[in-house]
């Protein structure tokens, strides 16, 4: 991530130097590299070396303590052969729906309502409240929801109060509901983020456009699909990228709420990588999961960025 801007700075410096003769260009280039040296050292030490190291470890069977055995790409094959690992990537697919698609849809709906009521009193207050989940430490969020989902927690109390006793259950302990329960925490987390992004996007649309549409007799829906949605394309791509990546990286919520259980119903790749590396002593396998996860994230991000409108580049 941080390497790309650095390289751009370097090439930028070279281009600037090119106008003033060969020697000076070389000198300027040399000095420019000196400027970025600390940052390069930092990113090599803390980003590139560990990344390459992880890739290297993934080619071994290693318990983290004794000598390792070379197994080539065996660990990678296991990512596809091992049912638990395959499932963990499947679970993340479900989480993407709850972390990304649902919050974006909800936030768009809210945007539609809020942008109509352009003089809503106390708007900044609501914006703060909706954004609050993003600034709370994730362990606090997870612990709060642990209590909401508990057998006599808020959710079950409400369900019983309105006579839906049959729906009440231990949400995180039930194989059929645990993953969805974790996903809904993600929804709650990400709605605020998406909404703030979209509202700022709507703010950039010239009010004349809305006025013109209204004069032409457009209703709320037509206004939304005709003006708001196209104007928000850039923001939606950003929201998609952020939320999909956060779903793929999920670790903290799962670690605090279910530890991957019941059974393996909520295990996700990041949790598998952790538990294999630090609990069950399968460092090579953990590293291969981490590498595959990284590649998946890069691919998904690249795909999403293709949705970005051209003029925004």
């Amino acid at each position, binding site marked *: 991530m941080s*390497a790309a801007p650095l*390289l751009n700075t*370097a*090439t930028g410096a070279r281009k600037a130097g090119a106008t003033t003769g060969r020697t000076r260009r070389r000198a300027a280039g040399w000095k420019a590299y000196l400027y970025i040296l600390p940052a390069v050292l930092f990113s*090599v030490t803390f980003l*590139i*070396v560990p*990344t*390459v*190291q992880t890739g*290297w*470890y993934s080619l*071994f069977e*290693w*318990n*983290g*303590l*004794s*000598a*390792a055995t*070379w197994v080539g790409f065996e660990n990678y094959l296991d990512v596809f052969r091992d049912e638990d690992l395959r499932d963990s990537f499947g679970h993340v697919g479900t989480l993407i729906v709850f972390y990304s698609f649902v919050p974006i849809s909800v936030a768009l709906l809210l945007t539609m309502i809020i942008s109509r009521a352009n003089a809503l009193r106390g708007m900044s207050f609501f914006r703060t409240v909706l954004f609050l989940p993003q600034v709370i430490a994730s362990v606090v969020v997870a612990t709060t929801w642990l209590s909401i*989902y*508990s*057998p006599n927690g808020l959710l079950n109390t409400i369900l019983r109060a309105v006579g839906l006793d049959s729906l009440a*259950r*231990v*949400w*995180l*302990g*039930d*194989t059929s509901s*645990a993953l969805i329960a974790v996903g809904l925490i993600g929804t709650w987390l990400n709605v605020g983020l998406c909404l703030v992004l979209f509202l700022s996007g709507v703010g950039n649309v010239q009010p004349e456009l809305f006025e013109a549409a209204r004069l032409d007799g457009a209703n709320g829906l037509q206004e939304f699909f005709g003006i708001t949605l196209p104007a928000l394309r850039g923001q939606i791509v950003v929201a998609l990228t952020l939320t999909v990546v956060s779903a793929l990286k999920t670790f903290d919520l799962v670690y605090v709420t*279910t*530890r*991957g*259980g*019941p*059974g*393996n*119903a909520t295990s996700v790749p990041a949790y598998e990588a952790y*538990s294999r590396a*630090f*609990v*069950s*002593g*399968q*460092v090579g396998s953990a590293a291969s999961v981490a590498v595959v996860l990284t590649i998946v994230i890069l691919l998904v991000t690249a795909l999403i960025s293709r949705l970005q409108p051209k003029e925004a580049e």
Partner: protein
Amino acid sequence: MSTKNRIRSGTLAATALMALSLTACAPGGSAPAESSSEPVSDDIAGAGEVTLSVWDQNTDEGINEAQESLNAAFTEKYPNVTIEREVQSFADLKTTLRLALSGDNPPDVIQANQGYPDMGAFVEGGLIRSLNDYDELYEWSSYYPESLLKINSFSSDGSEWQGDNLYGISQAGEVVGVYYNRDILEQLGVEPPTSLEDLESAMAAAQAAGIQPMAYGDVDKSPGIHLYGVVQAALAGADVVNELATGQGGAWTDETSVQAAEVVQSWAENKYLTEGANGISRDEAIAAFEAGNAAFTISGSWLQAQFTESMGDSAGFTTLIPEGEETPATTGGESLAWAITTGAENPDVAAAYIDFINVDNAAQVFLEQNSLPAVLPDDYQAEEGTLTADVVNAYQTVSESGGMVPYLDYSTPTFYDTLSSAVQQLTDGQVTPEEFAEILQDDYSAFLESK
């Protein structure tokens, strides 16, 4: 554009090469040479100023206090020694210890969990030292019964559990069994159960009276191991489970192990176990039992101090006798082993420390804190009718009659994960007892083949 790309790929290749050259050797390296054969000594006062870094998991009520007072007594005896204690929960220690041990500056004394996952891996990696020389010096073999020393032993390459080399000694005795609420059982008019059958009919009676039969919370995943372990031992008997857990014979798909799974699943289906147990924490379940909201709970002697404090004499403890046998069979053994790392700067001081906190006067300190020591003093007599008496008697009977079976997660390096996840699936009806047995057997046979 093309220049940019070339520079980019060139730089990337260069950094990748550089990083590779930094790491281009198999991780882990070779195990350090066996500890030197320097003569060992118990002269601690003459060792100069020594700082001992100690990592333990004695967080439970009673045991933590016992540890604090033992540490204080040791530094009082040897003022030249400073103890830096790092105490973490069992689960946290399990994850951080691996990293700490493989680093350049490991702690001197640690508490290692027995079996293949931890102690075996530490021995294989040459990270903890054999204590055979200190065993001779301090005569631990004459203090501990052989069965307890065996649990803390491995072959020198870590491949065979219960081998010839001693790698640690333990403070606390442990026995897992069924805690019951005396008041509730009296109210129901049933005797404390001594067999699986008794337990099941007592649970049925509790349920009929509208009382939760057994408090059970398994979100932390480890209580499931005890639940299955207790039932399996009561059905299969100690010898069968011992052979299985130590890799000497048998299979998890054998009849009694499958039966045990059937029993556990039927308890969940009949709602004998707390409903939705997979979403309930161990602590919540224990709290429900303490509050008198459940007749039974299955756990280990480490809760003795806590229950004595919270429930007084209304808490009782019992173990189950397999059909056709005279004495009970159940999970148990001893607490984590106090071991000395190969990186310890002053092994003599470390050995004196673990001798002091485990052997000398440790048993008395543990008893004062309502905790069970590994070896009971000869003249010890617990007060009749107390929880302490129940636990001590169970521990003594089970150890002396050979009814103790090891924690099942010792069986293979990945068994903790495999078994605890499988029990969650079993109680939730996600797998049949046969499928449950297959999951365990797959892990087990893969490990035996790899040895």
